[in-house]
């Protein structure tokens, strides 16, 4: 089970059991639908952007532990950040999920989010972790309100 523990780290299991910022956000001004057609994962991301700042962010939906934990940790991390900071974070996380060469120092930089790096060893699960982040990027950059990782 040792390497499974690398994917399902305690922080991920915790965020899956008790997702933070879960539920609708009534005064959101960006609402994004995210789907992983192959898994059946479906999440709705609610973002309230004011003055170039992510003032509030919540999500709801169903998905595997990786996708729920990733969504939960994402909302925790970007709440209160500027749009530019959030987009920069998207790039960092995307790199961490897809590139094996990510340096330990860079991972340390990401704090709790580094726990998601375990998916690199599970190619079929990368899209589970990426869904929330693509939804975030879409919410902050485009008018399109559905994203898919396929």
């Amino acid at each position, binding site marked *: 089970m040792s390497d499974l523990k690398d994917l399902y780290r305690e922080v991920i299991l915790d965020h899956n059991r008790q997702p933070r910022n879960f539920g609708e956000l009534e005064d959101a001004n960006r609402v994004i639908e995210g789907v992983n057609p192959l898994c*059946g994962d479906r999440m709705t991301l609610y973002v309230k952007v004011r003055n170039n700042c992510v003032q509030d962010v919540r999500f709801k939906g169903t998905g*595997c532990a990786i996708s729920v934990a990733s969504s939960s940790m994402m909302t925790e991390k970007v709440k209160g950040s500027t749009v530019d900071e959030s987009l920069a974070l998207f790039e960092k996380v995307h790199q961490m999920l897809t590139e094996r060469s990510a340096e330990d120092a860079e991972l340390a930089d990401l704090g709790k989010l580094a726990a998601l790096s375990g998916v690199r060893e599970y190619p079929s699960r990368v899209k*589970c972790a990426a869904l929330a982040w693509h939804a975030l990027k879409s919410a902050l950059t485009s008018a399109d309100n559905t994203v898919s990782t396929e």
Partner: protein
Amino acid sequence: MSSIEPMVTDHSRITDIASLRADFPALHQNVHGKPLVYLDSAASAQRPQAVIDAMVLQEQRDHANIHRGVHTLSQRSTEKVEAARDAVCRFINAASRCEIIFTRGTTESINLVAASLGRSLLKRGDEVLITHMEHHSNIVPWQLVCEETGARLVVAPITDRGELDLAAFDALLTERTKIFAIGHVSNALGTINPVAELIARAQAAGAVTLVDGAQAAPHLQIDVQALDCDFYAFSGHKMFGPTGIGILYGKERLLETMPPYQGGGEMILTVSFDKTTYNELPFKFEAGTPNITGAIGLGATIDYLATVDFDARRRYEDELLAYATDTLKHLPGLRVIGEAEHKSGVVSFLFPDIHAHDLGTILDKEGVAVRTGHHCAMPVMDFFGIPATARASFAFYNNRHDVDRLAAALEKAKELFA
């Protein structure tokens, strides 16, 4: 078969089903350091060595294009492909070899009927009747042809147990129903549909009938004359043969009247720029060079299956499915999706607090291969109000030990997520 061949009795066939596992080389390997438990045969089954050997021999020695050359290799290849057609004809008890069309698989077989027959038959106001438990490949081709012709797709509902609602089916079957298409066995639920009875009712209403047999071919004895269906579709790779080869059986009198599906070589008799004369059946529907090695592999698969006593195999599989269902139901919290009275080969299940995808990954680490997701049957998932299931699917090469390994791996998943 010629009449001078000796009759073989079933006593000469293999009845020790457990011994057959040794014939499948892919089953004898470690995955993540543990002996593989392959429980994903409903997605694609493993192949016995005899099938692999037949395909290697074709590739190494006999390959050439068929029905064209007068040279030796072309003749060898042609003879083997046509022998495979004869094998398929026997396998499903078709009346004539001209009713056996090689396709790429079940999906293409259904698309062929939808495109060729559907387009010429359907008019605005007509209906195509399917069921709520169909695989996407028995939904989407009909949606496409309905859109094109103005016909309506009608869906017969299912019950909480995962069986067809027969009363509702009867009510939906009317003189407007021009085509009735149904899966013999549900890939997501394992339900065996009472197809013979349903076909009889649909015929009485005047509908053309098609059976999607992808999940039945590896488990059931198929007799298209007894079923009296107009079309029967299945795939090589679900029944221990190669991918990229499948079968469309069609009644000769219907196939004769249908326009070709694709144009090209093989399907013609003569071509000039003014007019093309189509070839006779089944070649009218086999445009282009077919999957020669695949067809030969499928023939070898049928020859292999013919060495096994069917009743013994069926008993073995039924007993194994009952054991698996019972074992899984004893795991606290586990919910089985699909509890039809007659089932074959499949247990779909989920835990309330562990997503199917997480189960799939954890089980893989334990060497246990299952399918997770919607199984190309999203309407079935919607019906049960779930996003996905884990599905353990069984073949005669599985055994009780495989079930025990699955149960132990599920216990580990529960521990991890506790």
